[in-house]
């Protein structure tokens, strides 16, 4: 079991807005024998800094990577943004010697040096690559048979393909679908599954992300899904927290519950809806829960 140990990089948005993701993730990971080591200290992965100063964003990411290197642990994140940013920094700093020297000259000011000795994983990678489907199947005590859900893998978990690795297909992502099927639920297909949630630009323009998200919710609804499953807090905010606002903006109604994958898996593992904080979702999954109970 010793190899199922990771430095837990929680990020900023989850502790700020989405305790339901953290609580449900900690519960299922613990039950699966995954050990989370808390960060000795924390700074933002650099995601919102990259657009204004990429050198600083890389330095912030590299500092987090250095903390993991010092502990000799791989990083586990729950957020596509943190995963993409840390993983990307790890890759380009390993490959680009000139850039690495420059970033290391900044890190020198804080007594650190990036060496490139750890790997960055999203919880989806830990579940599929390290825990494995056999062990997951063993833990599924209450299969969610009869439930029809759709998935939104999100962008930074699979793109750009040349940077991400981990073997999913960015044109037709299947890894999250397989994880969903392990819970006993059916994973339905819908139009434009790889479309972005739009969240990263919501701070400069709200109308456009709302249009993109509305299109996604239209497609998910047309496919007859009872819920949408996400693995990123930003995507989740877009489809759950903003769903009533999107409904108002377009004078329409979706009422599609959006669950963190860890909540779906948790239900299948026998945790109660309260344990998994399903009550904290903005769009209440009442119908879905009555069906599976």
């Amino acid at each position, binding site marked *: 079991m010793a190899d199922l140990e990771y430095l837990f990089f929680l990020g900023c948005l989850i502790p700020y807005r989405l305790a339901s993701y953290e609580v449900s993730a900690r519960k299922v990971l613990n039950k699966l024998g995954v050990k989370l080591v808390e960060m000795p200290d924390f700074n933002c992965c650099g995601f*919102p800094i990259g657009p204004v100063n990429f050198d600083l964003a890389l330095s912030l990411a590299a500092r987090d990577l250095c903390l993991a290197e010092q502990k000799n642990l791989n990083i586990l994140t729950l957020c596509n943004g943190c995963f993409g940013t840390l993983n990307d920094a790890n890759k380009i700093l390993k490959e680009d010697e000139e850039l690495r020297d420059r970033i290391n000259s900044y890190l020198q*000011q804080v007594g650190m040096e990036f060496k490139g000795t750890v790997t960055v994983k999203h919880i989806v990678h830990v579940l599929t690559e390290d825990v494995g489907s056999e062990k997951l199947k063993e833990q599924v005590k209450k299969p969610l048979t009869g439930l029809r859900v759709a998935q939104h893998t999100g962008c930074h978990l699979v793109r750009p393909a040349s940077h991400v690795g981990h073997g999913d297909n960015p044109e037709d992502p299947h890894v999250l679908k397989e994880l969903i099927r392990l819970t006993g639920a059916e994973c339905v297909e819908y139009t434009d599954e790889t479309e972005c949630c739009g969240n990263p630009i919501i701070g400069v323009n709200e109308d456009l992300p709302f249009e993109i998200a509305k299109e996604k919710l239209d497609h998910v609804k047309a496919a007859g899904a009872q819920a949408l499953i996400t693995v990123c807090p930003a995507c989740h905010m877009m489809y759950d927290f903003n769903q009533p606002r999107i409904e108002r903006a377009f004078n329409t109604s979706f009422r599609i519950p959006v669950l963190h994958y860890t909540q779906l898996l948790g239900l299948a593992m026998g945790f109660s809806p309260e344990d998994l904080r399903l009550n904290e979702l903005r769009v209440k999954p009442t119908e879905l829960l009555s069906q599976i109970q």
Partner: protein
Amino acid sequence: MAELQQEAQENVKPEKIDPKFKYEVMKHPGAEKIQMCFQCGTCTADCAIARFSDFYKPRKIARIVQLGLKNRLLGNPMLWLCTTCFTCVDHCPQGVEVSSIVRALRNMSVGNMNEMPFIYKVFASNVLKTGYVYLMPESRLKRRGAEGLPPLPKSNVEHVTKLFEATGFLETLENASTFKNVNLKTGDQDG
């Protein structure tokens, strides 16, 4: 094609061209291959933002960089509409990372014009002050204990400040002016 010809005609006025601009852009990580763009338009065809915006077209951005029309790009608010979905990076037959080029242009706009969207100034200021992008309310931090969650890791603000200083961004941040929104109808700043 007509659009391209029109662009080419408009753009021959020599005073508007900075022949070194593309080399400046190419110095940024990920933007190295800008000269390989052969204007096929795949990036624009597959860009979700381009579908909903009359102003944001990644193919055009690549062309304007190649032509050296620096003033059309630096400080242009529409640059902030890219969601960094990276579809253009995966689909470009020439290996041009348009979204990395957009990131380079944003960085250059911030550095040269001292201007950024308000939200980015707020986020960067929060990171500088607390290590986190958001100012965590005291009530939230307290609630973690009651929820059975470990305390949120403290941040090393001293280290973060040193990195802001070392990269020169501390000064930029302090002096930067801001704008609130990008207007979809005009492509201009709002507020």
